[in-house]
């Protein structure tokens, strides 16, 4: 748990999260479900929700400093 918290405090995590989001929201991942709107709906909202959860965790574990 402490390790996870340390990871979440890492400033470079935002870059990894961005890359991961980019991969999740564009081709080729989307191509696997793009023919079925219902499936795409579920997939996109799940992925989106996961990113939001990540952002919440990053906020709650962030060091309350202003350095950047």
């Amino acid at each position, binding site marked *: 748990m402490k390790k996870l918290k340390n990871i979440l405090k890492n400033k470079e995590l935002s870059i990894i999260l961005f890359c991961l989001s980019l991969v999740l929201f564009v081709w080729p991942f989307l191509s696997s479900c793009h023919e079925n709107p219902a499936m795409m709906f579920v997939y996109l909202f799940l992925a989106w929700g996961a990113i939001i959860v990540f*952002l919440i965790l990053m906020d709650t574990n962030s060091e309350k400093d202003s350095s950047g």
Partner: protein
Amino acid sequence: MFSPLAVITVFCLYMSILFVIALLVERRIHFVKNLVNNPVIYSLGMAVYCTAWTYYGSVGKAATSGMLFITIYLGPTLTIIFWWTLLRKLVRIKSTYRITSIADFISARYNKSPAIAALATTIAFFGTLPYIALQFKAIFSTFKVITQTSADSSIGHGGNVTYIVVGLMILFTIIFGIRRLDPTERHQGMMVAVAIENTVQLFAFLVAGIFVCYFLYHGFGDILRQFSESRFYPLMSAASKGNSSFTIWTTYTILAMSAIICLPRQFHTTVVENTNEKHIRTAMWFFPLYMFLINIFVLPIAMSGLLKGYSVSQADNFVLLLPLYHGKPWVALVVFLGGFSAATSMIMITSMTMATMITNHLLLPMIGWFRWLGGLRRNLLKCRWIAAAGFIIVGYWFGQLVGESYMLVNIGLIAFAAVLQFAPVILGGIFWRRANKAGAIMGLSAGFIVWLYTLLIPSFVKSGWVSSFLLEKGPWGISFLNPEHLFGVVTLDPLSHAVFWSMLFNIGFYVLGAFYCKSSEEEQRHIDDFIGISKSVVSFAPPAERENTVILNEKAERVENLFKQYFPVLESESMVKKCLCAQGIESREKISVVELAGLQNEAEKLLAGSIGTAAAHKALQAGPLFTDKESLELSTTYADILATLKVAPQELKRKVDFYQERTALLTQHAEELGGKVRELENQVAERKKAEEALQEERRLFVGGTTVVFKWKNEPGWPVEYVSQNVKGQFGYTVEEFIEKQILYASIIHSEDLDWVTEDIKMHSRSGAPYFEQEYRIARADGQYRWIYDFTVVIRAGDGQITHYHGYVSDITERREAQEKLEEAMEVKLKFISVVSHELRTPLTAIREGISLVLSGKAGVVTDVQKEFLHDVKSSVDRLTRLINDVLDFQKLEAKKMVFNLQPADINSVITEATQQLAPLARERKLNLIVKLAQNLPQAKLDKDRITQVLTNLVDNALKYTERGDITISSAKDETQDCICVSVHNPGSEIKKEDIEKLFQKFEQLERGGKRKTGGTGLGLAICKEIIDQHRGKIWVVSKAGKGTTFNFTIPIKSDG
């Protein structure tokens, strides 16, 4: 259905409530105070991104293109991941430069260029105008839906209603956002109103979604299942099957990624309205969550609308139509209100921002060119009102003109593509050191022109405003220049095509300009500020002490004159004071050039807050504060600093950056720690104070011997309050006094009660504020104790005594000791009396015997024998006096001497005493002179004792006088109302330090270098006691060459 009047009424009511809330927030009313500087309000303010386009258009887009609409919200989420780096940097720059808008920001970065600011304003104008049209389109079409039976979703001509709505939008924009000129350009009241609108919007959409999913169908799964079996299924999935689906998806995502910062309203809500960097952290998840929630029902509503048989062309209004035509008009009204909220918040924020940009970056430069427009400077606020109104009206007009040809979503994307042109200059500006003004102008211009040509003009063509020949054959038949297939590119959809070419030209020229044009020195300074801003928020301290040569008044006057061009006189004066205070030079007469530079910066910043950085910079340049000499001195100062430090400018910069970063960190840590320390110190101080008070109370009331009473002024003195330690002192408990009502009088000794009562009455009548008594009380165990009672009288306003406060201490031990002492004194006195008597009897016999022998009756006495006998007699006299003195003194000290005070004539007492001492005086060859005042009143005195005093004083005078006259006089002292008797001798003086000891017992002083013998050292002490008993005074005056005078007074009206 609802009547137009009812809907307008609801609309006005809703806006009025919002206005009241906004007003309360701005006035910092207690119960809304928490809404100011609140991260949730800040995050909800950002949701102005979700306009009527989101509300209605997303459903329309979903009905035709499936999940493509979601890119508009996924894009911002991707950008938001970097906000802690990106947005924080923008916020810091905003705070440093007092940025008011996106155009202001870009201009500030590129050497505060008015040209760039004007260009950015123009792009923003063209980019946001369609958006305003979009909002009006949404309002009017939904208004028509909710007020008519027809479900026509096109912009109708609702008669006067459209004008009313436009008018109200102008009114609300002005009263919410442009009521006054604010140097910070932050509108906390408006932001709270917008946050509430966005909350209403989300709530309404969720209500619509829940209604559709759970009242019209059996949940998400049911809708998805039914839809997959319907004929519409291929329609929705077809959008993602085409060849360009990837391109469109990517284009939409890129546009949305940039829009979240580059849209003027977004820049305003995220950057300009930010009051605390830390709020960004909250917004980083709160805003994506908002978008997530508002979009979760979009696809089900779109599917549901199609399944219910509505046409695709009605898809934009599905969210309204479904509840309206399925028996839930009130849900429809809530939905309408939600959509209305979305549209109004967007219109208000955008119009306000555009009004600021238009006045600051278009109007003010024009005023600079055309002198006859100079008067407008003083009416900047009114200019903003006109700009906002004009912008809204033009937006409405644009909607009427070209809106029919496009669905809502297309208009929104035109705006997105326009503001995308800002992205390279903003990102390059804060991350790329080489980026410069020339590149920015070239890039922005090129990108804007290409956007205009490839996207806006085709929209005009599609609206039937321009000939369709342009899109079919290209200009002048040149297909190579076809706006939608520029340079022969035919594979891209029109939007991706426009984005591709505009970005290519924009970035291309931006980079080209950066490489081929050199930045000026001043621009280089701004570059350093912008790129290195995240390292520090601390400004330079004054570099060095310089001589104060600049007269401050002159400069302040110049600054004030400059401010007066834009603001009223009073406000200008206040702003000047603010500048001076910020620099800490308000009380100075002269300042240094370095401080003058600080003043100029402060004035520019303050002005920039109202008119933008470019205009403020230009205004300061037009009327510079520095003379040539001062400029030279400032340059020399900075050069000196570099020379002194012996470092290269770059090295200095690096070091300054490093230390500023450290300072920023340390300052923040120190502030945090300081806050905690202050908090702890306060806690400790409060605790210490409370402990001390407690200890004091304990000492006084619990552990101490003083019992505090509060008695009512009623018969028996019932106790109203008594301190807890009463049990220890009195044996009674507090309850017994308070609840069982034991009267205080009941515990006073029966022998003392009468006089205590009388004494209290007497003191109360006299009006004394307090009095003291010593009496006995009976403890609970029956034991009597002596107490000392210090009583304070408490009176009401009318002077009536209501209570007594008593501080009562047990003095039994002291009283017992005193009684024992008195007994001992009594014994001592008796002993002395007996001894004295026993001594005096033989001495009298001896004296009489000697006298007999000396008289010759006992035989002849020779001269030698006579001499011896005289010596013996004088020793016997001396011994007799000594015994008498000792006896008298003991009696006086033990207060046993009885004074027989009778009215008597003091002169006769003096005469008598003088006569007794006359032989002695003659013997010593001295004269006794008596000077008596005539008609002296009689005084109450003990003749024998006063004679004793006089005898003692005259005898002393005779002893210490070698020659001369001894004068005894009497006089009346009118001021003191007493008789004064003096005994003067011309003998040697008494030293000042000896005078104080003179009346002390057993003191015999040396006078004239020799000590007289024959005294007991008690004479004057006895005199003092006797005079004291007569309530008079005795004192001595002795001066060199003038002799010594003993004085005493006897009061004429003595009570004694």
